[in-house]
């Protein structure tokens, strides 16, 4: 382990274990004696299960059981809305839904048997597009969605609604838009994609001699998972414990209970360890993925470039179950916060999440924000073009400043959007040029994203050793973001000791009061606040025993901006887009660990780049055609553009540690920056992600033949 110094915080404690293959992930743990699970899935998006023939499957040597809905508790699970059964009961609502499960002594036997289960499903009408699903005559995905525990819809709403959030003043907004000197209206769409973690979802549920179950699995929120599974299966406290386990990536995709309730139910029934490791194809085609979206933005300005009004209307295809969404409103905060970054005299937003006969959708790094920012930031450029104003100037004139009140009425002590944008533009000027291929056109495009950070409550325990070192027990897994390292660094500083003397250890759920889980960009800030309290408590103690804290401190939220610029080259003969450079200016307060911080910025930018130019689950008529990583293209090292980072330091953070979040900042605005750059390069506007060569080429053909004005 490299020595920590003031200049160079200690490197992540798990680096060597990861580089040598010693780190154990869920699928690596010993599973001798385990029953292996294979899932039989519906291949149609909507239907009635007519019959299931298990005989051939049951005859496979090593098979212990083939279970249908009636063989398991008839419970419903979910993070907020509990609408998803363990196994489809009579009705299937999406292609990929569990219709039977096989348990066997080996994974091979389970999978062989699963392939032999014959399921006869009578197809029923299905609906795939969320706008179609809101039609009067659309098939109902659920008969009575308002009746599910946790549902936020009522009987008077459209029966295919999962969630509806509205804010602002639609009438005033429409009026202001009509009166505006310039306005544009456009609709933008994004497809589904997967979070792209390389470790498929997996579970290992082990019965204990006292009847309880110890669950190990791909969860980034062990306490929430324990709560959700316990609620779903009617378990009492102490009957379920979640083991600390590192994750092979998350990005929002490992917060849903997934197959955990099923595995726990199977472990309780068979009184043997139960192991389910999804194959990549299952993970890509049947687990929680990003919501596809259709967003319509109307935005206007006066001749000086002051924004007058914006109406924002998003419709998300939520999939067949609402169970993967944790939010109180069962909506996506990126859409709900769409009006956040700019001063808007009049505004209205509406975000609807709709039941569709597609794979149930969940969270992905800044949920709802990719769609919303793609729409708003593209619309701003279209407005700038209409008004004859430079896109950067349009933004600079309207971004929130210190003390400004946002559209939702919140006043931000600090809002550095304009400065962050300026920093990005300054860096563009000084950035070394990247060669543009001969005959290609080049262009630049900007986009800005902002998001609030708040401190969430969490718990920690500090255990001193006689040699002056410490163990700090944490409730969260290391998902890859380096969150354990951040805790170590923060605590070491707070205690005034070298980070080498602090060891971070994730503990099982029974060992600490609780935590909301990794995600929502809340870990650094939440941990910073908890660490401060822990250090205060330690200082006030006798220094002779463990000290614990369940942090309740509340601080006002702070705002973080990311301004990004894409430099692109476009081949006019083919439409091919090469992103030459991505500049990310990030508004930061105090950076705890510069290397980990930069990794989040780079990883985010590359994920955004993937969404911008190549990612698409290819959902068609309820089926996911990008069923493997050869078809769902994720960026490889040779695809990645030059990445340039500018940190705007000295920002206002939270707590004594003065920290803000960065994990969900740099992936969001990249697609808009790229689309804006393409428009700048060749004068065509792509309003549907990904910005593919074919779409650009078609737009070029159309603009040429139809002489369509820019």
């Amino acid at each position, binding site marked *: 382990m*490299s020595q920590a110094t003031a200049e160079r915080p200690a*490197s*992540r404690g*798990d*680096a*060597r*274990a*990861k*580089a*040598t*293959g*010693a*780190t*154990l*992930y869920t*699928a*690596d743990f010993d599973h001798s004696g385990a029953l292996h699970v294979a899932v039989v899935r519906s291949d149609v998006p909507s239907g009635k299960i007519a019959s299931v023939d298990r005989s051939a499957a049951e005859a496979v040597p090593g098979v212990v059981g083939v279970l249908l809905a009636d063989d398991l508790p008839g419970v419903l699970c979910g993070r907020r809305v509990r609408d998803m059964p363990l196994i489809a009961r009579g009705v299937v609502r999406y292609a990929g839904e569990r219709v039977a499960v096989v348990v066997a002594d080996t994974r091979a036997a389970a999978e062989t048997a699963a392939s032999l289960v014959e399921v006869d499903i009578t197809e029923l009408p299905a609906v795939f597009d969320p706008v179609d699903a809101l039609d009067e005559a659309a098939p109902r995905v659920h008969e009575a969605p308002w009746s599910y525990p946790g549902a936020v819809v009522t009987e008077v709403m459209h029966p295919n609604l999962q969630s509806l959030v509205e804010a602002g003043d639609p009438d005033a907004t429409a009026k202001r838009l009509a009166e505006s000197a310039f306005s544009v209206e456009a609709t933008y769409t994004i497809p589904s994609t997967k*979070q*792209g*973690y*390389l*470790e*498929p979802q997996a579970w290992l549920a082990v019965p204990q001699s006292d009847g309880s179950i110890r669950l190990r699995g791909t969860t980034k929120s062990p306490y929430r998972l324990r709560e959700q599974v316990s609620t779903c299966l009617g378990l009492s406290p102490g009957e379920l414990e979640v083991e600390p386990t*590192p*994750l*092979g*990536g*998350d*990005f929002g995709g490992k917060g849903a209970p997934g197959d955990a309730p099923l595995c726990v139910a199977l472990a309780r029934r068979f009184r043997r360890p139960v192991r389910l*490791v999804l*194959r*990549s*194809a299952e993970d890509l085609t049947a687990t929680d993925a990003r919501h596809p979206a259709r967003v319509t933005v109307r935005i206007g300005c006066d001749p000086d470039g002051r924004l007058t009004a914006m109406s924002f209307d998003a419709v998300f295809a939520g999939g067949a179950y609402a169970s993967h969404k944790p939010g109180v409103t069962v909506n996506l905060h990126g859409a709900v916060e769409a009006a956040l970054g700019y001063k808007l005299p009049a505004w209205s937003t509406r975000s609807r999440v709709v039941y569709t006969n597609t794979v149930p959708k969940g969270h992905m790094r800044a949920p709802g924000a990719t769609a919303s920012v793609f729409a708003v930031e593209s619309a701003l450029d279209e407005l700038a073009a209409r008004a004859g104003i430079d896109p950067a100037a349009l933004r600079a004139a309207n971004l929130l400043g210190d003390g400004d009140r946002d559209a939702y009425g919140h006043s931000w002590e600090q809002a550095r959007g304009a400065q962050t944008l300026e920093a990005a533009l300054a860096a563009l000027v000084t950035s070394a040029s990247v060669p543009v291929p001969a005959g290609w056109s080049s262009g630049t495009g900007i986009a800005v994203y902002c998001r609030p950070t708040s401190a969430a409550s969490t718990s920690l325990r500090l255990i001193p050793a006689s040699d002056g070192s410490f163990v700090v027990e944490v409730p969260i897994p*290391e*998902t*890859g*973001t*380096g969150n354990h390292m951040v805790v170590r660094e923060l605590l070491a500083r707070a205690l005034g000791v070298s980070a080498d003397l602090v060891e971070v250890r994730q503990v099982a759920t029974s060992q600490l009061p609780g935590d909301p889980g990794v995600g929502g960009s809340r870990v650094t800030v939440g941990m910073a606040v908890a660490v401060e309290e822990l250090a205060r408590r330690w200082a006030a103690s006798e220094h002779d025993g463990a000290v614990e804290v369940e942090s309740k401190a509340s601080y006002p939220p702070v705002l973080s901006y990311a301004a990004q610029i894409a430099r692109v080259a476009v081949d006019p003969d083919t439409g091919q887009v090469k992103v030459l450079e991505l500049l990310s200016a990030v508004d930061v307060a105090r950076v705890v660990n510069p*290397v*980990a911080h*930069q*990794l989040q*910025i*780079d*990883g*985010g*930018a*590359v*994920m955004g780049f993937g969404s911008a130019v190549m990612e698409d689950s290819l959902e068609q008529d309820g089926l996911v055609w990008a069923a*493997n*990583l*050869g078809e769902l293209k*994720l960026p*490889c*090292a*040779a695809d*990645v553009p030059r*990445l340039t980072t500018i940190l705007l330091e000295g920002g206002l953070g939270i707590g004594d540690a003065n920290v803000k979040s960065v994990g969900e900042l740099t992936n969001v605005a990249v697609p808009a920056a790229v689309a804006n750059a393409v428009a700048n390069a060749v004068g065509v506007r792509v309003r549907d992600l990904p910005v593919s060569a074919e779409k650009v080429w078609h737009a070029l053909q159309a603009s040429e033949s139809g002489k369509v004005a820019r």
Partner: protein
Amino acid sequence: MRLELTLNGSPVDLDEDPTATLLDWLRSLGLTGTKEGCGIGVCGACTVLGDGRPISACLTLIGTLDGVSVLTVEGVAQSEPTLVEAFVDCEAMQCGICTPGHVMAAAAAKLAGIGASADVDSEIRYWLEGNLCRCTGYETIVAALRSYLER
């Protein structure tokens, strides 16, 4: 089927179904450093070396390995400390699930003489096109390879 191969420097006699994959066999021995990712040879999480060449363990039938010397990340951890140091020093990982595959790709790169061209950065990036990483954005991984290949 009886087979003889060398695994991380030690000779091994085995009797296995020749259509079993190298990945399944390695993991059944408790060598879990080699990961199952995409299962179709695209992501690189199962990269190992066969006679010094990088191969996808998930797509290698064990029957083809008679007489072959197989090196996994566990073996490289012992035999190539400078490679491990390069990854640690450059912090060439976050979640770490792709890291063994990248370490093996780096080991293979050295054996293949990668790093001699005028544009080492491009050369490394193209060498890595079959090793996906979703976390890091690749910058520190490329730096680790650069550092290792220069030593």
